[in-house]
């Protein structure tokens, strides 16, 4: 992975920079010894590692602003970092960059039940928000599988989703306001507890910007009352096709479940071995469908889905009758990644989205690609919204396997784009998919996105080398070439 060339002029001043950073934060807030900074060398995409020049852990917005202002003036690159659970290398350090960790921003600042929102610092975990309000029966809806560890700031940066986003939306649909610091050190507050109506949608553009536009120092998110009840169906199918048809049929009948997850045979077997969820083992595809709401609504919809599933040819249909049973249905799916980790020395998790109707076609192609590359692949997906997570199995100790796995992964993502889908559904581009952006976007598309980046960070010091395959200088991007072209009419003055 080619990263921006480290700047020796910066590296030569490392000790001076460290001393300066120490003047901004408390003594334990700057980490520079090699042993200690090793903890920051990668995120959850562990194939790529790089020691940062130094790690700084500020505690207040003013400290973040001071650090950024200083780095801006000195042309020092910054890599924001939440909990480091990102799967695309978004928080991968730069050799000449300061990794700015937000772990100390771990306070819930305000719980406002009347306005149904929580104001939190970005280092609070996703689950931490729900835990802060659940005694009053509320929760924060987006629930990435990593929710015990990932930070809400990281969720904003990645626009994270979870199994329940089919019904409740992604991070972007649940964010009301934020405070952020621009690379220049300027602090901005956007939105609040009200629903923003006018002006450019800065909240929307910052969500999913992977730490390239600003450092988020506070978030205000919407909370919801917990549904009265939730129940799940566990549906087995003897082919992926029939399972995909069942998904289409449920949506076609006008039902949007709270979540709809699918696993192929390999994932089912691996997770059953790992957690003993009681999954049927003679099926080619397993579908978990969750309904939530009032008792009456849930049982009404479950009856409908039972009929749909049996018409679609489900070979086994189980309905949860207790909370314990429901959680048991989920236990396998929620542990799919560690379970795969047990059957293969290494794996990489891909993350493309495809139109639902292409599901069985794409899965067939993935099986073919698996043969071509000579590597196994287990599939789990958010079937309701067509977001695939193929897990490519390999052994990094075997020469060449990592490279083959990456090629296989790239082929899968290209396939997703080819059938009308996208490169990444929720894990972000980071460094992992950076060089594949050209599969989805033209040069003009990418340049226009980068011009937006220039509006926020003209020196391109925030997380450079991520998301965009080519770094263009802002001055270059801003140039306007007015083309030749005949004038069909001359200028007519207004009167």
């Amino acid at each position, binding site marked *: 992975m080619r990263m921006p060339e480290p700047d020796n002029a910066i590296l030569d001043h490392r000790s001076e920079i460290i001393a300066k950073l120490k003047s901004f934060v408390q003594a334990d807030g700057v980490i520079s010894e090699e042993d200690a900074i090793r903890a920051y060398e990668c995120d959850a995409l562990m194939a790529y590692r790089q020691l940062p020049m130094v790690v700084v852990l500020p505690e207040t917005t003013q400290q973040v602003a001071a650090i950024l202002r200083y780095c801006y003036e000195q042309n020092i690159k910054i890599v924001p970092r939440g909990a480091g659970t990102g799967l695309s290398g978004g928080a991968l350090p730069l050799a000449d960059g300061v990794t700015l960790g937000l772990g100390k921003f771990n306070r819930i600042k305000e719980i*406002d039940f009347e306005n*149904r929102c929580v104001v939190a610092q970005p280092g609070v975990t996703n689950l931490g928000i729900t835990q802060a309000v659940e005694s009053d*029966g*509320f929760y924060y809806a987006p629930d990435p599988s990593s929710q015990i560890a990932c930070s809400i700031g990281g969720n904003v940066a*990645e626009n994270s989703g979870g199994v329940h*986003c089919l019904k409740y*939306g992604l991070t972007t649909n649940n964010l009301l306001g934020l405070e952020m610091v*621009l690379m220049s050190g*300027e602090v901005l507050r956007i939105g609040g*507890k*009200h*629903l*923003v*109506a*006018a*002006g450019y*949608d*800065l*909240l*929307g*553009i910052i969500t999913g910007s992977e730490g390239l536009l600003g450092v988020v120092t506070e978030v205000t998110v919407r909370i*919801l009352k917990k*549904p009265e009840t939730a129940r799940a169906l566990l549906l087995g199918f003897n082919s992926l096709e029939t399972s995909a048809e069942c998904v*289409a049929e449920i*949506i076609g009948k*006008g*039902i*949007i479940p709270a979540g709809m997850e699918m696993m192929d045979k390999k994932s089912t077997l691996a997770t059953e071995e790992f957690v003993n969820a009681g999954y049927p083992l003679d099926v080619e595809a397993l579908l978990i469908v969750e309904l939530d*709401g*009032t008792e*009456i*609504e849930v049982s*009404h919809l479950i009856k409908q889905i039972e009929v749909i599933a049996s018409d679609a040819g489900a070979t086994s249909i189980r309905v949860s009758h207790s909370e314990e049973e429901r959680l048991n249905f989920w236990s396998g799916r929620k542990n799919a990644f560690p379970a795969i980790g047990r059957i293969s020395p290494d794996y990489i998790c891909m993350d493309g*989205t495809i*139109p639902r109707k292409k599901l069985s076609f794409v899965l067939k192609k993935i099986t073919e690609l698996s043969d071509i590359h000579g590597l196994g692949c287990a599939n789990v997906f958010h079937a309701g919204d067509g*977001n695939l997570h193929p897990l490519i199995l390999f052994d990094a100790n075997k020469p060449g396997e990592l490279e083959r796995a990456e090629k296989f992964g790239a082929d899968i993502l290209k396939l997703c784009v080819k059938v*009308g*889908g996208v490169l*990444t559904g929720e*894990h972000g*581009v980071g460094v992992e998919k950076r060089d594949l*952006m050209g599969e*989805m976007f033209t040069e*003009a*598309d*990418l340049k*226009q996105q980068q011009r937006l980046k220039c*509006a926020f960070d003209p020196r391109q010091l925030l997380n450079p080398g991520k*998301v965009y395959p080519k770094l263009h200088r802002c001055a270059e991007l*801003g140039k*306007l070439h*007015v083309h030749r*072209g005949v*004038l069909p*009419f001359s*200028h*007519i*003055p*207004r*009167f």
Partner: protein
Amino acid sequence: MFIVGFFLSLTFQDFEIMQHNLPSTKDEVIQIIETALKTQSSLEVVCHKTKRSYGRPVDADQLLDMKNFSSVINYEPSELYIQCQPGAKVSDLSNILDQNKQCFAFEPPDWGPMFGSKAGSGSVGALVACNLAGSRRIKQGATRDHLLGFHAISGRGEEFKSGGTVVKNVAGFDLSKLMAGSLGTLAVMTQLTIKVVPKPEKARSILLYWPKGKSSDHPAIKVMTQALGSNYEVSGASHLPQSVVHRSKLNFVNAKNSAITALRIEGPEPSVEARCTALRRILIKFGETEELHTSNSLKLWKEISDVAIFSEDTSRPLWRIMVPPAFGADIGKKVLKSMEGDLFYDWGGGQIWLASESYQNAMVPKLFEIVNAVGGEVNLVRGSKKVRSEIDVFMQKKPGILELTRKIKKAFDPEEILNPGRMYPPG
């Protein structure tokens, strides 16, 4: 070749003759923009012109009229999206969706009549450009939450796209969010992909009639807060004070001449019945209640979302105030103390529609101050051209935000040729 003509257009106060560009293909749009760049002329981007009087008046040399971009490109009910050109009418799209028992979840309001235009004539391009949303905003979001992707021509005369047709998509910056609500100041959209959802099987609304006499705004906000903080999935929460109920065309609303709080429940029939009964049990403590069935319910929420209550007299300035919902009644009260007019609440108190009796520049700072104190925002949605060019229609943004806004504008439209001044004063 696209049509270039001279065209007489009637705006609120004056007649104007502007060069009228009427392209039918994206190449023609590119050519028009390139020409504008060369000749240093600016373009006012319009479609069916129903919301032309929303925002600051644009001072442009020519019109760029997108109404010929009117086709539906692709509608895949099972994939839950519709792809169309920006000139397609929202009402036509809604009919198409309806035939498949689908709809736009964000309940696109029809603002046309509010500005004196014909009902049902608004374009989907304008819907996106204004980032509109109806009463369901509190549960389902606004247009920005449902625009999955778009193609556009920037003020540089370059075609670009963003997003796609799927909901889960984090590849690159989410420019769809930026395009929604940008009022045509960044780029000219040529193609849009919007998420659709199954239509709720049933809708029921519960009306609570407040005892006559003293203001019910505060208790009403409390009731809505309780309902929205419940797990009954309320999809509409509005309060109409006594002073406005006579403006409603619905018998259920205007007959009793008392303030009304309306709550909406949608979903499968048995669930709707059960939730309604539960909510009614809460409401009955405060006054008499009534239930509206699907057809009446649709009429009520259309009236509220379209702000039809204030459509009659288009000369009255109309303000839209967004605040943290629980503070709605406080703000409403303060506002009416400093400004004569009528108001009603939507979004559980989070959106206040205020029709003021008259307009005086002096009132504006006071209004901004009241709203600023709770961290909200005010827009002057309807006002004379003169007023709209004199005040900050979208409320003075903080300096940092304003500066960023200008930089974003330049990133897409460096010469500021698209809708100059529509959002903020130019310069």
